[in-house]
């Protein structure tokens, strides 16, 4: 069993500069076109931005929904990937993705594959708003941050 890779998005660090989207679309499609990037930049209504992308779900609904066998967990790191050569563009994965992380273009679906480990979006982000890591590290980080937050603010609305 490989370790579970999780996506760590730090919303307070994102400035909405779109560099991740440009790096993503250039790597995957060969053009600077945020619209076909694997990352969607969400405007949180005056509260800042954050990059929305595949969260690599542990029980990924898209994996079950795919009728062509195009979606699978990658052997080397357990990341959920979509093989466009096998995709028939039926949109079943879009229908069940809770994060709207899968797109549709030219009769095929597409999603993030971490640039096969190159992680172009992470490398280009000047603010460290996107991170990939193991589930253990991610949870430890979140606990630590939450503890810091609670001790500073005496309990916040965002705490869980």
């Amino acid at each position, binding site marked *: 069993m490989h370790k579970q890779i999780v996506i760590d*998005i*730090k*919303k307070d660090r994102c400035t909405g500069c779109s560099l991740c989207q440009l790096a993503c679309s250039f790597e995957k499609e060969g053009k600077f076109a945020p619209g076909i990037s694997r990352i969607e930049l*969400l*405007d*949180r*209504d005056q509260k800042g931005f*954050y990059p*929305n992308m595949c969260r690599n779900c542990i029980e990924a*609904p898209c994996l*079950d*929904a*795919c*009728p*062509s*066998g195009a979606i699978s967990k990658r052997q080397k790191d357990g990341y959920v990937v979509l093989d466009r050569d*096998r995709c*028939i*563009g*039926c*949109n*079943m994965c*879009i*229908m*069940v*993705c*809770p*994060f*709207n992380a*899968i797109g*549709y273009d030219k*009769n095929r679906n597409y999603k993030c594959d971490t640039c096969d480990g190159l992680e172009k979006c992470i490398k280009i982000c000047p603010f460290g708003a996107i991170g990939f890591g193991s589930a253990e590290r991610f949870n430890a980080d979140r606990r630590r941050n939450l503890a810091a937050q609670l001790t500073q603010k005496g309990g916040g609305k*965002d705490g*869980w």
Partner: protein
Amino acid sequence: MVVVIIGSSIACKSALETLLPELSGDDRIIIVTKDIHLFYSRVMLPNYIAGELGLEEMYFAPKDLLEDTRVNVINGEVKSLDTLSREIMLDDGNRISYDKLLITSGASPARMNMPGEDLNGVFCLRNLEGAQAIRNWAKKSGKCVVLGGGLVSLKAAMAVKSLIEDVSVLVSSSKVLSKIADKTSARWVYDILVSNGIDVRFNVNIAAFEGDGSGVKNIVLKDGGRIDTDMVIIGKGVRPNMGLVDNTPIRTDKGILVNPHMQTAVEDVYAAGDVAQVYGCGDEGSGLFTLWPDAALQGRIAAANMLGADKRYTGGMGMNSAVFYGVPFIILGNVRERDTKGCEVYERFDHGRKVFRKVAVKDGRLTGAVFAGDINYAGMAYWDMRSGRKVETPEKYLTSKGLNELFSGREKF
């Protein structure tokens, strides 16, 4: 332990994937199937007819799954079960005993029971052999008639249209997708089909098929009219293959009844996929959902429970996704006028972009949604529906901007 799985489609595959890593000692898995080709995807049959995919591209599972030495594949049809002696009986008279049994025997096309239904050139689209026959026949035909206005019929019509110029769809009701869609989205689909040259006719009732030794020639209508054609594809829904559990204590209704563990009324006998009748996740009672994602999940849950885990199925949901000439269409839950009585219904038709969205809300919870032309965030609506999340501003589901706001507003990262 000997696990016998009947059937070889997605529910079988996901069960196999769950079972294999957990087997110990001399545990074995026997797959009994009447399919010659294992693990091909029925969803891709229209792509095969259209020639977009070759035979070797029709498989959704890697072949090495079956190369495991603990897996045996037996070709044959299961005739009956003996749940007391724990055996299955095959059509060739052989018996196979099991410790745990998973029935994923799927469904077969519903027959119309009309004269001439067995003529050459009259097809159903359900299996690979059928798709091969349709493709070969269509290559030498000039005209095709598709019966039925369901998704399978429409997909078949679009696939055949890429081979034949003259394709008609005859629908017995007054709209396409009459079992799942509301009037506006049915009209939206109809417009796309017609503008791409498919002739769709409503309120047409068939009486018989006429032809000779070379194949079908005419369709006779109930009103006495005749439509000449070279081939017919019947798409009138499917019926579960559950004859094998006749004369056993296994309970059936529309399909084989199962509990949330996917277990039938008999211990150690499980059912999953199109043959299983499961509860819906809402208050719609139990039924057949016959969906690919559900079958995958059910197979996995049945297998996990065979291994002693306590995994529960959270209920099926009517949903579907289709692409009509490049335009995406997703329907979730119940959206027909007759199903949305007592619901608040919100609709928005963007005529410029040809985008239609609709949501139905009951007691503050989503019960149905249509995403036609733009399927952004359909998955979010799907999970809202499944989880029964309270919906405060339903009108936000009707625009891309609203959906965007809804999604980013609830993110807690």
